[in-house]
């Protein structure tokens, strides 16, 4: 505190509280919508205070979905989203750890060539190469599979860069000591590098889980069978059917279900999240 000016502090708090309210308002409205029945949700004005149909809506969303949605519950889609997010996060971390290890700790031909090749992926977000990437995945018969959903997204320069940075800060003496004790490269990787990068791995996992869970365009292209849909995609389909028969209570329940896992991860692993966010972006 530089100076004691209660009025300015009060103004700061009020501004912040207003800011929080503006940011949270959409979620509040969504939550309220998910607690009312379909009848209430077509009467203007819509409610601003929760009703008591939360669990009915939850059950309906999980089991049946919305009318005209092919009787497809959200339960399966949540599992698909989870599988995709986990595969993307674990896959990215695994391949990036290995390649960063090779680039930092080995002298071998084309080392820098490989490094630049990895760097290029930074410049090719999936949005700008969707059609040819889609063709590759289709030719490899990976449409409608978990592999097709996740593998094209797991090459990542940022994760490799971050691990490279982490490894560069690990003292050289550790490798010397490990060698004197007779440890080979993989032993050194497993017993020294991995434990020492634990927090970085966890921080990256948080970011990548959110990234994977929230994928939209890619799953939209590679899945055509309903039992492979992810929950984030389902929202869009529900919004389309909402044009005819708006079951906003179920749609908003699904929306809540789709955003809860990553939001909870951010709130409960805030420290790791902040670390991951600030370190991967540099």
């Amino acid at each position, binding site marked *: 505190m*530089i*100076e004691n*000016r209660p009025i*300015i502090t009060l103004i*700061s708090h009020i*501004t*912040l509280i207003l*800011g929080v309210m503006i*940011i949270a308002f*959409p979620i509040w409205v969504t939550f309220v919508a998910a607690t009312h029945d379909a009848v209430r949700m077509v009467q203007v*004005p*819509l409610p*601003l205070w929760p009703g008591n149909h939360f669990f009915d809506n939850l059950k309906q969303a999980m089991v049946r979905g919305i009318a005209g949605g092919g009787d497809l519950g959200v339960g399966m889609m949540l599992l698909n989203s989870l599988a995709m997010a986990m595969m993307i996060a674990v896959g990215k971390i695994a*391949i990036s750890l*290995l*390649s960063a*290890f090779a*680039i930092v*700790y*080995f*002298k071998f031909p084309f*080392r820098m060539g*490989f490094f630049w090749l*990895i760097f290029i*992926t*930074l*410049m*090719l977000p999936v*949005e*700008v*190469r969707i*059609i*040819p*990437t889609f063709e*590759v*995945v289709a030719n490899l018969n990976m449409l409608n599979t978990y592999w097709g959903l996740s*593998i*094209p997204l797991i*090459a990542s320069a940022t994760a490799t860069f971050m691990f490279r940075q982490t*490894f*560069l800060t690990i003292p*050289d003496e550790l*490798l010397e000591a490990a060698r004197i004790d007779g440890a080979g*490269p*993989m032993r050194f990787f497993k017993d020294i590098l991995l434990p020492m990068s634990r927090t970085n791995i966890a921080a990256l996992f948080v970011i990548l889980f959110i990234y994977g*869970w*929230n994928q939209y*365009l890619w799953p939209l*292209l590679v899945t055509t069978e309903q039992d492979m849909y992810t929950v*984030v995609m389902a*929202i*869009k389909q529900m*919004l389309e059917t909402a044009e005819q028969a708006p079951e*906003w209570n179920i*749609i908003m329940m699904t*929306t809540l279900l789709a955003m809860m896992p990553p939001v909870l991860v*951010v709130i409960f692993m805030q420290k790791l999240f902040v670390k991951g*966010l*600030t370190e991967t*972006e540099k």
Partner: protein
Amino acid sequence: MLKRVHFGPSVLPFLLVAPQIIITIVFFVWPASQALYQSLLIQDAFGLRTEFVWFENFEVLFDDEHYLGTFQRTIVFSVLVASISMGFSLILAAMADRVIKGAMAYRTLLIWPYAVAPVVAGALWVFMLDPTLGIVTYGLAAMGYEWNHKLNGTEAMTLVVIAAAWKQVAYNFLFFLAGMQSIPKSLIEAAAIDGAGPVRRFWTIIFPLISPTTFFLMVVNIVYAFFETFGIIHAITQGGPAKSTEILVYKVFNDGFVGLDLGGSAAQSVILMAMVIALTVVQFRYIEKKVEYS
């Protein structure tokens, strides 16, 4: 870059980089080169004949008023998203930096929208502003304003900008707050002793000192608005009404997957790639600078 103490050449490092390199080549380099190649081809309507046309696709694009309009729209959209989102977070971060007590609680309450998927953000906002049922629409009607983003292009644009900016506030806030908290308190105390009030201190000390953060966020926000807002637009407006919210990324998808104009879509992809490369270069130059000064 390489450790002073390292392992000698063997097969092992090749095996270690192999998974990443193979995935990069199969799913990044190859498709990107295909996009480059396809951008030089024209396919007839039935996909039977393909003709190599050099840069005709690009010429067509740059003569196309629709495309130029999309370009312009994308720039307006990105500038609006970046400035609204950054302005809002800058104010909040400045306040949170002041209050000490509860700063972390405010941070928790402000950063979670980062985790909301763009489509989900779109769904939240489209529900609140639904022309017949939306709660905000109702409020606006009570004030005498009739909102219908399904008919009015400006309102549609406003809606996607708000939804996109809302989602990005979390990220900007986090970086602004971190930037402000890393400014030595002694600087601000010295200014206070010299009689500078809080507003003056903000503009003469805090704001100039966080300018690297501001610049970094500007690049990140523009990249975000260019590429990651696809879901928001797809959920809220599908580029409509009358293409008033169609931005470049949406047009690539729409021309390629819906319109099946592969050559034109590939040419657009190539232009987008050039833009990402330019933005990445800008971002990296900035990082180099930052290392120099610190």
